[in-house]
């Protein structure tokens, strides 16, 4: 177990390093950062001052090593626009994004697992077909548009939920639903195919030959095996959801990390942008590692192979 975890950790560190290089290079794409920071009205002298102030006159490698060294200590530098430490900005906004992501995941799991099971049990009937069409509906729905439609209907016309901002749990319901929509199709299909595979397996035939009740066959023997891939995909989906929260936070004006990123991109605030990219990537890496370990716990074949 230890050896396995260690190997995963090393790969994770290498991935993190690569993402760091990429996110660093990303901010250097536009050419001269000093000019973009200084803005269109700045004079040549202003640009030079800024260049020196931010250490942009040094070679790229030095800049990168400097950034990476500080980032490892949790220091992502200072935001140009917010005039605050980037780490503090992210720490302040992260709870909102995490709440949103977990709400979305919870809604997605609550909807998709029963739907997927239902479709599998009724495979190749109109019920199955309907579930698949519903999943495809979710997949085809542009999330930002769905958000706007919900704001008009549930928010404005019916007045059930607040339209934007944070403050109460009600504020997370609509964005949560919208975010869940992005994960429901994949999770439903996965539950369905996992259950169909389990139900068609030899051990389910054995369970039937043993005269077990339908409940025990479905709930105990089939679900346990179908759940194994769902768990790892759920963790990955949470990672994608956090990455995708930028659109939904912007639509609902939720001041989370995604919103922060969007603001920073619009303001050319590159230390914030590269830090957010890195933090989201690290969260994703951590989530996939957690999923691997969880899988090993659920699947005895992985546990002691």
């Amino acid at each position, binding site marked *: 177990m230890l050896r396995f975890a260690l190997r995963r950790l090393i790969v994770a560190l290498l991935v993190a390093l690569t993402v760091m290089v990429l996110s660093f290079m990303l901010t250097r794409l536009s050419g001269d950062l000093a000019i973009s920071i200084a803005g269109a009205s700045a004079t040549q002298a202003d640009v030079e001052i800024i260049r020196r102030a931010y250490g942009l006159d040094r070679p790229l490698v030095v800049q990168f090593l400097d950034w990476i060294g500080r980032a490892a200590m949790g220091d992502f530098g200072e935001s140009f626009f917010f005039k605050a430490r980037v780490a503090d900005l992210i720490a302040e906004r992260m709870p909102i994004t995490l709440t949103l992501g977990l709400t979305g995941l919870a809604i997605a799991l609550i909807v998709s697992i029963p739907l997927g099971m239902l479709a599998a049990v009724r495979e190749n009937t109109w019920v199955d077909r309907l579930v698949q069409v519903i999943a495809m509906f979710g997949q085809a729905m542009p999330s930002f548009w769905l958000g706007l439609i919900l704001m008009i209907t549930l928010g404005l016309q019916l007045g059930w939920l607040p339209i934007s901002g944070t403050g109460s749990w009600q504020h997370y319901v609509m964005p949560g639903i919208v975010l869940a929509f992005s994960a429901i199709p994949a999770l439903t299909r996965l539950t369905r195919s996992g259950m169909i595979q389990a139900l068609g*397996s*030899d*051990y389910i*035939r*054995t*369970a*039937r*030959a*043993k*005269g*077990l*009740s339908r409940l*025990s066959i479905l709930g105990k*023997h089939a679900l*346990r*095996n179908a759940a*194994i891939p769902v768990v790892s995909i759920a963790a990955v989906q949470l990672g994608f959801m956090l990455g995708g929260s930028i659109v939904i936070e912007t639509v609902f004006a939720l001041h989370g990390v995604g919103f922060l990123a969007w603001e920073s991109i619009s303001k050319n605030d590159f230390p914030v942008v590269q830090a957010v990219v890195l933090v989201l990537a690290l969260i994703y890496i951590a989530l996939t590692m957690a999923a691997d370990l969880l899988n090993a716990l*659920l*699947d*005895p*074949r992985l546990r*002691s*192979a």
Partner: protein
Amino acid sequence: MSAPLLDIQGLRVEFGDTAAVRGASFTVSRGETHCVVGESGCGKSVSALAVMNLLARGARRSADRLVFAGQDLLALPERRMAELRGDRMAMIFQEPMTSLNPAYTVGSQMAEVYTRHRGGSRRAALDRAAGLLAKVGITAPGMRLGQFPHQLSGGLRQRVMIAMALMCDPELLIADEPTTALDVTVQAQILRLLAELQRDLGLAILLITHDLGIVARIAQRVSVMYAGEVVESAPTAALFADPSHPYTRGLLACVPVPGKVKREEALGSIPGVVPRIQPGFEGCAFRDRCAHAAPVCAGPVPRQRGEGAHEFLCRLPPGWTATERAA
């Protein structure tokens, strides 16, 4: 003669436009091993699953008579049928590698059969499971109970399947190709085990196989299936001494027997391939591949009865083989 334990008359199973079993009839008596033998697609496994009511959705089952220990299985609702399965009739399968649930321990899978049918504590069920594991020749049964299927070899898993089938002292054990996936040395061990258990427990075994060698060594009675029908049925010795259906004869000629068939000599073989039979097919299904086929074979085929409960489905009369041997 007392009533047989399992009495199947005119069993039919159809999937869509394929007739998998077409009026198969055979009986299994208490304490007897009855082998159903045939090539893939002949309907032997489907017949076994039909008895257990384990056919896949979409399969249509019907029969003139399907009686187990005096109960009409055709009239039994699935819930009552489930109460019989695993309790009075048990089944083991071909693939021991996939027939056990990978997510649960051997012990928990064995115990649940007992608690489901007989109730009682899990502890008591586990004790019984340990005893049965020992009985099927597994050493250190206590340790095995806590293991997961993937930690066992194929032969051990099949032993676990057998022990699990015996949890509730069934009267009938249906074994569907139980040794096909195993090595020859392990196959011999498993078959010996089945033979022993049958002797000790008075079990009736319905064994499905494609291997005439297994049939010869373990069965008291044999039914040969071809294209969904039982084409020949006889006590084992009688069948091998005087195979009477042309298909049975062809099949036996195909098997290389050490010391019997000369090396450079060709094996006997049956020309052509097994036809796919649709519902409503008339006549003998073997006629296109048969050297003895005649125009009448397209019509209804008579069931010939030879000596000592030796039956076969053919236009040729009982004893026709004697004239062929003379020729």
